[in-house]
C-alpha cells in the first residue's frame, strides 16, 4: 500500500486493470498479445484488418483520423479485456458487440491535441465557401465525438467525457476513472488518451491512442481473459496514480511496467 501524506485521512481507491489496446504510427496492439507500445514518429493509422472489421459498422469510413484511432484503440482494449465477443479483426459484418452490461460502462479520455486537425480542415471549408461548410467534418470537431462513436459501436451507456491536458499523460483521466468506479455509477470504465498532432511538430512520438479497461474490484476473475494485469490505485486527494503500489506518472510508463 502506498503511503503519502493524505493516506491517513483518505483511503486509497483501487481498481483492476484488465485490458490494454493501442493504435499509433507503428501499428496497433493489445496487452495480451504484444509488448508495450513504442511511440515512433509518424502519423498513426488504423491497420487495414482492424479498419475493415470496424468498417462493417456504420460510418467508420467517414470518421476523421482522430476518431478512427480512438475508436479502434478502445475496441482493442475491450477485446483484450475479454469484453468483445470476437476480436475486432474477426468481425466482418455487424458492429462489434460487447458482452458488457451496457448500463455500467463509461468512457473517459484525455487529450492534448483534441481534434485540432479536423477543426482546421473544417475551417478550410468555411474559408472557401461558408455556405458549403462541411457538416461531415463539423460533427467531428468535438473532442468527444469519437467517444460517441465508440459508445454506439460498443453499446457503452455510462459516463462519457474527455479532459484536456497540456501534455499527453492521461494520469488525471485514469484517476477520474478510478474515482468514478469507486463513487460513481459505472462498473467498468475505458480510459486513456487520444492525440493527433500536426505532422510538423516535435510531438509526433505521442500521437496515437492508448486505452485501458478498468473494472471494480469484485474478486470474480473467472476467465483467463478477465485476469487483471495489475491493481491501479489513486490517492484522490493528491491525484497520484499507482500501479501495483508503485507511483506511476503517466499512461506510457504504466504500460511499460505491465507489458515490458
Amino acid at each position, binding site marked *: 500500500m502506498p503511503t503519502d501524506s493524505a493516506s491517513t485521512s483518505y483511503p486509497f481507491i483501487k481498481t483492476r486493470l484488465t485490458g490494454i489496446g493501442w493504435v499509433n504510427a507503428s501499428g496497433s496492439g493489445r496487452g495480451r498479445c504484444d509488448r508495450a507500445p513504442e511511440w515512433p514518429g509518424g502519423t498513426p493509422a488504423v491497420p487495414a484488418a482492424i479498419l475493415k472489421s470496424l468498417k462493417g459498422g456504420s460510418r467508420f469510413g467517414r470518421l476523421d483520423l482522430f476518431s478512427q484511432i480512438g475508436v479502434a484503440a478502445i475496441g482493442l482494449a475491450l477485446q483484450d479485456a475479454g469484453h468483445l465477443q470476437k476480436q475486432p479483426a474477426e468481425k466482418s459484418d455487424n458492429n462489434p458487440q460487447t458482452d458488457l452490461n451496457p448500463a455500467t460502462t463509461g468512457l473517459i479520455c484525455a487529450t492534448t491535441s483534441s481534434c485540432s*486537425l479536423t477543426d482546421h480542415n473544417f475551417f478550410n471549408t468555411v*474559408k472557401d465557401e*461558408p455556405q458549403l461548410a462541411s457538416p461531415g467534418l463539423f460533427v467531428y470537431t468535438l473532442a468527444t465525438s469519437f467517444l460517441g462513436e465508440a459508445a454506439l459501436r460498443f*453499446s457503452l451507456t455510462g459516463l462519457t467525457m*474527455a479532459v*484536456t491536458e497540456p501534455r499527453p499523460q492521461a494520469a488525471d483521466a485514469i484517476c477520474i476513472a478510478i474515482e468514478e468506479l469507486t463513487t460513481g455509477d459505472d462498473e467498468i470504465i475505458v480510459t486513456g488518451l487520444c492525440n493527433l498532432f500536426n505532422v510538423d511538430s516535435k510531438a509526433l512520438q505521442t500521437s496515437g491512442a492508448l486505452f485501458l479497461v478498468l473494472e471494480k474490484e469484485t474478486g470474480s476473475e473467472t476467465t483467463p481473459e478477465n485476469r487483471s494485469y495489475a491493481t491501479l490505485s489513486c490517492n484522490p486527494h493528491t491525484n497520484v496514480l499507482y500501479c501495483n503500489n508503485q507511483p506511476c506518472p503517466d499512461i506510457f510508463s504504466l504500460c511499460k511496467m505491465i507489458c515490458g
Partner: protein
Amino acid sequence: MREVVIVRAEAVSALGDTRSETWKRLLARESAAAPVTHFDTSPYYCKSAATIADIACEDTDSSRLSLLLQKLFKSLPNRLPNSCKLIGSTLKGAIDQQEKVWRRSEISNPGNLSPGKSQPLPWEAAKYIADHFSLNQPGLIVNAACASSTIALSRAAGRIAAGFDDCILVWGAEIISEFVFAGFASIKALTPDCCRPFDKLRNGLILGEGAAALLLMSAEKAEETGSKPLARISGWGVANDAVHLTAPAADGHGLYEACHRALQRASLKPEDIAAINAHGTATIHNDKMEIAAFTKLFRKNGNQKKIPLHSIKGALGHTLGAAGALETTIAINSLQEQRLPPTVGLIQPEIEICNQVAPEIQPFSGKNLLLTNSGFGGVNAALILQRT
C-alpha cells in the same frame, strides 16, 4: 457522503452582466436574439444569435473569450478560499483567435498545436482563469459536448461529497465564433427565425454566448467560512444513448437513465421533483427526446405527473459547453423564488407538455429542481438542485 452546497453563483449572459440582471430580464420575457455583427453572416441562412454586445475585438489578436471572462471576474472575489480547486468547461475556448491565425495562413498549416509550443485552446482559457485567482493549476477541463459544464458540476459535487475536496469553483464559458456558427448552420440546426423550445412549430436553435461560475463547498466548509448556501446539489447522473453520433435517442432512454441515476443519488422519487430546467434547444429531435424521457420518468400507475418545466434557450441562446453552468445559476433563482422564467418564443406547446411549459412565469411549490443537458455523442447529464 457529505452535503454539497453552492455558495456563490455568477453569470454573464447576452441579457446581462450579472445573474440578477439576467434573471430580471428573463422574467420580463426578453430575448437577446439579434443579428450577429462581429462576422459576416451573409453566406448563412441564419443571421441571429444571442451575443454579448461589448466584447467585440475584431481588430486585434485577442479573443472575445478573454473579454467575456473579464466581465465574469467583476462579479467574483479576487481570491478563492484556501485549497479551492477549479473545474471548468469550454468546448472551443478562444477559437476566434485561432480563426484569425487560420485566415492569415496561406498554407495548410493547422497552427500551433504541439505541446510546449502552444497549449490546447480550452487549457489556455483555464489557465487564464487560474492566473486571475493566482492559482498554480488550471484544474480539470471537462469536455462532454453540450453537457460539459453539467458534468463539470457533477464531478465537483462528487469529489466534495466523497470528501476528496472541500471547495471547487466550477466555470463554463463559450463565445460565438464563425467556426461554430458555420458548423451549426451546416447541419441545419439553426433557426432562420425565432427559437421556440417545446413549440409545435420549432425549427432550430439560436447560439448564445455566456459564462458562469459556481463556488461549491461542503456544508462544513461553508459554515467554517461563513458562506451562505444558495442551494444544495443533491443528485447527479450521466448516461449515454449509444444510438447515434448527433441525433438523440428518440425514446429518450439515455436522458431517462441520467435522471434516474440523479434521483437515486439524491434518494428521491420522481414525485419529489417540483420543477425542471430542461435542455430545450428547440431542435425538433432534442425537444421530442426530452418530452419522451420526462413522460416516462414522471408516469406512475398510468398517471402522468405534470411538472412545470422551462427552457431559457429562446432567450439566451444555446451556450453549448457553458449551458449547464449558466442554467444552474438561473435554477438557483427559480428555487429561491419558487417560479420558473417564461419559455421565450413558445406559442403553441407540444401536446404532451401543454400544461407544463408556458410563455409566462410559472409558479411552483417544492424544494427539488431537476436540470438536464444533452449533447452530441449521445451524452446526457442531470443534476438535482435543492432549496436550502
